[in-house]
């Protein structure tokens, strides 16, 4: 018996809500704000997916931008070379291209993860950082995707609808995953690797699995980024992009999906919200304030905004208790 509520009503509802947002947003917001909303969505996908590796599985990856780049370039390349391979509907093409981008990123994640996830802690961090940089330098040298000039004129197929759709898919997947056997295994790897191993959890296998899923969504985010900006350049995927995502995860709280969600929005909007200040003082203080905020937040709230809790936990903790 198919659970009607879960398997039919929910997806239909989500698509309707996304379509609704897609219809309403251009009416209310100007293009600048629309872009910010799309960027927030992309960053949410990146942060939530990285949280799967850094927060839930307890591994430390700082090469997320590399996988994003792989997905972005793959999907953009497909869109440019075979504009109508999945039929005449633009959205459908974009959907399949995004999946293709995600799959390439996942394959890259598998290739990177399998040998390197045997390393521990900081060594793993450096190897992922290294792979991220290698992917970028390799892209810089492939003439078919524009090399250092970048890739121009990608079709603008990523709308607010698609961003919202993928944000939902990503958050849904990670939430459901964390409530499954696999999720428990991920958590056990984070809590105590030796104990997990002695309980029969194949730690390397689960680490690689988390890494591959996370890379897939990084690729998806890259694809949306490519089709929203319509222009790609390897320098967009430099080391700083990866660091940005790590900052979102830690700021939101390691192992909190809603935390990553909120932190991604804050980090995307903060530099923009500080723009008026720049106009008053005519000096670009934004990044200085951003970095100071980061330091102060880490000193005063080391567990991040949400800690390990979700919005629903906070609701239960603070609201229900008083009613």
């Amino acid at each position, binding site marked *: 018996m198919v659970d009607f509520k879960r398997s039919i009503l929910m997806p239909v509802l989500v698509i309707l809500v996304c379509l609704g947002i897609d219809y309403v947003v251009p009416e209310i917001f100007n293009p600048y704000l629309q872009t910010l909303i799309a960027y927030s969505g992309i960053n949410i996908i990146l942060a939530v997916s990285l949280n799967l590796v850094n927060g839930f599985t307890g591994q430390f990856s700082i090469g997320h931008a590399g996988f994003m780049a792989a997905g972005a370039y793959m999907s953009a390349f497909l869109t440019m070379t075979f504009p109508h391979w999945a039929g005449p509907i633009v959205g459908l093409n974009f959907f399949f291209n995004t999946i293709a981008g995600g799959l390439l990123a996942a394959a890259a994640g598998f290739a990177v993860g399998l040998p390197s996830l045997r390393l521990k802690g900081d060594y793993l961090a450096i190897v992922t950082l290294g792979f991220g940089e290698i992917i970028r330098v390799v892209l810089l040298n492939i003439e078919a995707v524009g090399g250092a000039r970048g890739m121009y004129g990608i079709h603008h197929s990523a709308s607010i609808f698609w961003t919202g759709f993928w944000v939902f898919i990503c958050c849904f997947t990670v939430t459901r995953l964390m409530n499954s056997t696999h999720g428990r295994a991920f958590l056990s790897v984070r809590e105590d690797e030796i104990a997990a191993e002695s309980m029969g959890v194949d730690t390397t296998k689960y680490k690689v699995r988390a890494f591959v899923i996370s890379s897939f969504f990084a690729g998806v985010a890259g694809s949306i980024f490519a089709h929203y900006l319509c222009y790609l350049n390897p320098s967009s995927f430099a080391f700083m992009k990866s*660091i940005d995502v790590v900052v979102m995860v*830690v700021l939101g709280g390691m192992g909190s999906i809603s935390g990553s969600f909120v932190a991604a929005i804050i980090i995307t909007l903060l530099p923009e919200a500080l723009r008026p200040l720049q106009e008053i003082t005519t*000096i670009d203080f934004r990044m200085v304030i951003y970095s100071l905020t980061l*330091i102060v937040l*880490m000193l005063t709230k080391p567990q991040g905004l949400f800690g390990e809790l979700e919005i629903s936990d906070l609701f239960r903790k603070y609201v229900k208790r008083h009613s």
Partner: protein
Amino acid sequence: MEAFLQHIINGVSLGSIYALIALGYTMVYGILQLINFAHSDVYMIGAFIGFYSARWLNVSDAPGYGSFFSVLFIAMIGCSILGFTIERLAYRPLRKAPKLNALITAIGVSLFLEYSGQIVFGATPQVFPNILEDSIVATFGEVRVTKFDATILITTFALMLILRHIIQHTKLGKAMRATSFNGPWASLMGINVDRIISMTFVIGSALAAAGGILVGIKYPKIEPLMGVMIGLKAFVAAVLGGIGNIAGAVLGALIMGLAEEFVVGYGASTYRDALAFGILIIILLFKPAGLLGKFTVEKV
């Protein structure tokens, strides 16, 4: 053959600059298990202190060893103070927090230095003052050793000997080794661990400043973001040699310098930045603790 020897000389000179910076990373990591991302920006500030102190001392157009050493000295002192301040304000309050928080704070400090550097020094590259004149000091057939290369090699070597002396033969060094071996136990033996950590930052930052000045004379273009790539490579060099190990950092840095010089020299210069990481990954896959690092088995 001549070209080969020339590349070796250039590579060793580049590698010794990496080594100066890598030493700071490896010392801090050895004691705190913290990747001090702000270290590369301390190096940048060092170059800028050199830039301004050369103006202040009026030696911008008076090349010679007198001006070189006075600028070097001022930069090292300035960066020591900076390193001390960073540790005191940003890292010490996080001593007991999870490692990742300290790491994010380090990134925050790094961004802060970079972007306030862009405001204070301006984002456009500046030309480093001419405090040392280049000339050829020795030729072996076609192979030339320039004064810059010789100065870099000799300065680096001298600083490393001093560092080695401090670490192996002074009370401070003994305390540093003890702290890096086991912090809590060292403090039980009456070592003031906080002071030792401060000293580590001071020494590491002074070495980074020296690196900044040496890069300044050899590649005379300095800008607030100059530390990012070189810092990353120096850190990779430290990991390559086995992080926390001082001899390893020097070895790793020399390997990196030589490899980079050869890749550029034999025509694949666009892959230059990927190479460092390529070598690192290959070595880590076979020796997970780096070349000279000790692999420790985790016990329950």
